[in-house]
């Protein structure tokens, strides 16, 4: 373990020779009550006009580190450091009052979920005006106008109208931009952004990153926290890779991405699914990814066939004329942004929602529009793996009971044996059967969901954003597991995701959906490398790429 973290703070000046806006040496944050050492000796410095990114998985301490820089480590936190300066002043002696001046005025914080971070009872304009009022930067009569200017500056269309709306009336992308507007309202010299794009669609993510890049070009310093190396690659000048509360690697973005020194950084980079990773295993620390197990696609047998699906809820039509065939052993990717109708298609295919027109056939048998009684014997042929496994488990059940549930037809002894076999298949120890899902990690829960779905030996697995909530290294393991299973069992996958890299990595063919319609369909390489529809082209262009290594001139 190379602790390279100390070099940054002792460096006297940044790129422009200016003093660091915030610098900390050997920062330690612990939560004695919970018995957690969240941050164990991190040193970093952020200079004006510079973007520093902290990258790490959940539990790495990256968020606690960033929040500590604003004196927001959380209740019960014990913060210590050898040296800790904010704007050249000793932050270890800061009073609450000093911190309040720092927050908003000197440093703005952008957090992940704009919906919970904005007051639902106040208009967006009022939220921004409050920052202006607290720091008294703009006279009262000009505040509303200034709030609109700020919304305009962060690329919110119709700022006059939006300023009068409340957070729930705005889409996720607009909310995130409104939150950025309030963070930069007092024109802070440092912007700390904690996973600012994680919940956003890829095109919106690109817009938000561009916006942050513009602030940097305008002279602000940026501290970006993310679990996603590809996201920070386009904006960051320097990257710190954190794991278990320490910095394992630090350096200029290009060097870290192209020549990572620490095995963990290499593992993180190798775990990112993309066009380049097709046909290989992701969860491997080796520089060369080993090939994925070979599988065969039987193009002559369609296990699932959807023709002319039209569906909606009430008067709202969300799926409009969707048709596709899924062959034995094939992976069909279904991509689209939120609200494109992907999940409704999944629900129709699973027989959970009836289409208004069109039909679904499973193994050539009519599957939609038939009575549940007729559908029931075929139900085991098609199984679901959902985004949030915890929600799909009965809260009273143990893992063993959860996995056993689709196996009700087996005698008790056989069922127990099969559960043990399934848990082993997904790489979970047999004792897991006695535990409750709440006690498991996100990756373990998704493994339980996969084990359960495999129980009845289905021909089709519908995967609805199965890895979206997982850390990249865990995501890699789960994707590898799905590839293994598919190779061994010849299962067909309908793989739904908003993450084009994941889809490109795993799928044979892909459907691109927009506003309920399929806008493009075809071989995954063909569609992503030579998109015919402008919408697909836009999506592909918005994918953050690791290959570009070098920070681009994002401004303008």
């Amino acid at each position, binding site marked *: 373990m190379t602790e390279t973290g100390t070099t940054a703070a002792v460096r006297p000046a940044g790129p422009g020779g200016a003093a660091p806006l915030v610098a900390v040496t050997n920062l330690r944050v612990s939560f004695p009550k919970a018995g957690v050492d969240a941050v164990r000796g991190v040193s970093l410095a952020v200079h004006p006009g510079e973007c520093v990114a902290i990258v790490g998985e959940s539990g790495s301490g990256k968020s606690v580190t960033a929040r500590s820089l604003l004196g927001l480590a959380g209740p019960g936190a014990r913060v210590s450091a050898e040296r800790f300066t904010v704007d050249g002043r000793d932050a270890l002696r800061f009073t609450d009052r000093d911190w309040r001046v720092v927050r908003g005025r000197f440093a703005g914080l952008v957090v992940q979920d704009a919906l919970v971070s904005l007051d639902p009872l106040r208009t967006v304009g009022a939220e921004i005006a409050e920052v202006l009022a607290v720091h008294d930067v703009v006279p009262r009569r000009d505040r509303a106008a200034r709030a609109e200017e700020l919304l305009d500056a962060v690329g919110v269309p119709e700022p006059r109208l939006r300023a009068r709306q409340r957070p729930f009336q705005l889409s996720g992308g607009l909310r995130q931009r409104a939150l950025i507007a309030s963070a930069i309202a007092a024109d802070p010299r440092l912007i700390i952004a904690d996973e600012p794009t994680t919940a956003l669609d890829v095109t919106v993510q690109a817009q938000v990153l561009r916006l942050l890049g513009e602030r940097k070009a305008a002279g602000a310093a940026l501290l970006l926290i993310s679990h996603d190396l590809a996201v920070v690659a386009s904006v960051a000048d320097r990257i710190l890779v954190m794991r278990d509360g320490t910095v394992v690697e630090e350096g200029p973005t290009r060097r870290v991405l192209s020549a990572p020194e620490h095995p963990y950084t290499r593992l993180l980079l190798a775990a990112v699914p993309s066009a380049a990773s097709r046909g290989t295993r992701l969860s491997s620390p080796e520089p060369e990814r080993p090939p994925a197990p070979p599988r065969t696609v039987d193009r002559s047998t369609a296990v699932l066939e959807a023709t002319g699906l039209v569906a909606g809820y009430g008067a709202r039509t969300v799926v409009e004329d969707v048709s596709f065939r899924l062959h034995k052993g094939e992976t069909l990717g279904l991509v689209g942004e939120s609200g494109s109708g992907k999940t409704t298609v999944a629900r129709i295919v699973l027989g959970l929602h009836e289409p208004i027109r069109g039909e679904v056939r499973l193994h050539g048998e009519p599957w939609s529009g038939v009575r549940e009684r007729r559908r029931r014997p075929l139900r085991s042929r098609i199984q679901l793996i959902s985004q949030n496994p915890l929600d*799909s488990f*009965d809260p009273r059940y143990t893992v063993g009971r959860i996995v056993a*549930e689709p196996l009700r037809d087996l005698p008790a002894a056989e069922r127990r044996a099969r559960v043990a076999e399934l848990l082993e298949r997904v790489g979970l120890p047999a004792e897991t059967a006695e535990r409750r899902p709440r006690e498991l990690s996100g990756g373990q829960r998704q493994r339980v969901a996969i084990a359960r779905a495999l129980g009845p030996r289905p021909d089709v697995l519908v995967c609805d954003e199965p890895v979206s909530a997982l850390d990249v290294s865990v995501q890699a393991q789960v994707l590898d597991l799905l590839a293994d299973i598919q190779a061994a069992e010849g299962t067909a996958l309908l793989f739904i995701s908003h993450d084009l890299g994941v889809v490109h990595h795993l799928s044979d063919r892909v459907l691109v959906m927009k506003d309920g319609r399929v806008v493009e369909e075809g071989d995954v390489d063909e569609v992503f490398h030579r998109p015919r529809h402008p919408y697909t082209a836009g999506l592909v262009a918005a994918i953050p790429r690791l290959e570009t290594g070098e920070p681009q001139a994002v401004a303008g």
Partner: protein
Amino acid sequence: MAQVALRPARTYAYRLALPGAVLAVIAVAVAAPGLLTGTDPLAADPLHALEAPSGAHWFGTDHLGRDVFSRVVHGARHSLSIGVAATGLAAAAGVLLGLAAGLAPKWLDEVLARSFDVLATFPELLLALLVIAITGPGTANVIFAIGIAQIPSLARVVRAQTFVVRRAGYVEQAVTFGLPGPALVFRHVLPNVLGPVLVLATIVLAQSIIAASALSFLGMGPQPPAPEWGAMLSEARNYMRVAWWQAVFPAAAVAVTVVSLTAAGRVLRYRFEGRDA
């Protein structure tokens, strides 16, 4: 994660101690009043009528010279059994009707839900009195009357909870396993609906005990000389000026029981909600 989930239980355990202890004593009074008092609650002794609390008679004696302490202890059985039976009746009917409304087609749900609303507009005691007016007084009729009056509040909670649970991911997932309708309801929906019902039941129980005492006070419940807290209060009315103890102790028994139940219910609620938080 597991530690976080456990914390509410640890924090609130001590809050259950006092109400729990009181309820335990009351439970003993219901199950085996002989353990708490050796005196016959019905034994009249006119020579020692209306005596103030003393070593011999802890709560004093009433106008017929009966031991008030013994009557309060033995009265627990009457008052609580009415409350428990009425709550049981209301819970059974409420769960059944609420579940039916939550799962039924829209028109049937509308019919059921509106009838709960109409019933809920009547004050519970008034509704109970209405039922008694039809059935006549007596212990069984009081149970029936209070039970009916408590149905709407329980049915509404069950209906709302059913709406949440039937749309939960795990119910939908169970559909994809090919579970038939009744199995879905009894394996997944019903058990997950019952949690909040249990919490509400403690509050309904407290209300039912008050209602039982109130109806007995009005002479609708167990008939004299049976020792029931509400009936005892009613008898004590005429002697308030000379023998406060005859009224205060049964009243205190009602109050302490209800407060303990409410406190225990609140702890249960925190614990229940903490589990999901």
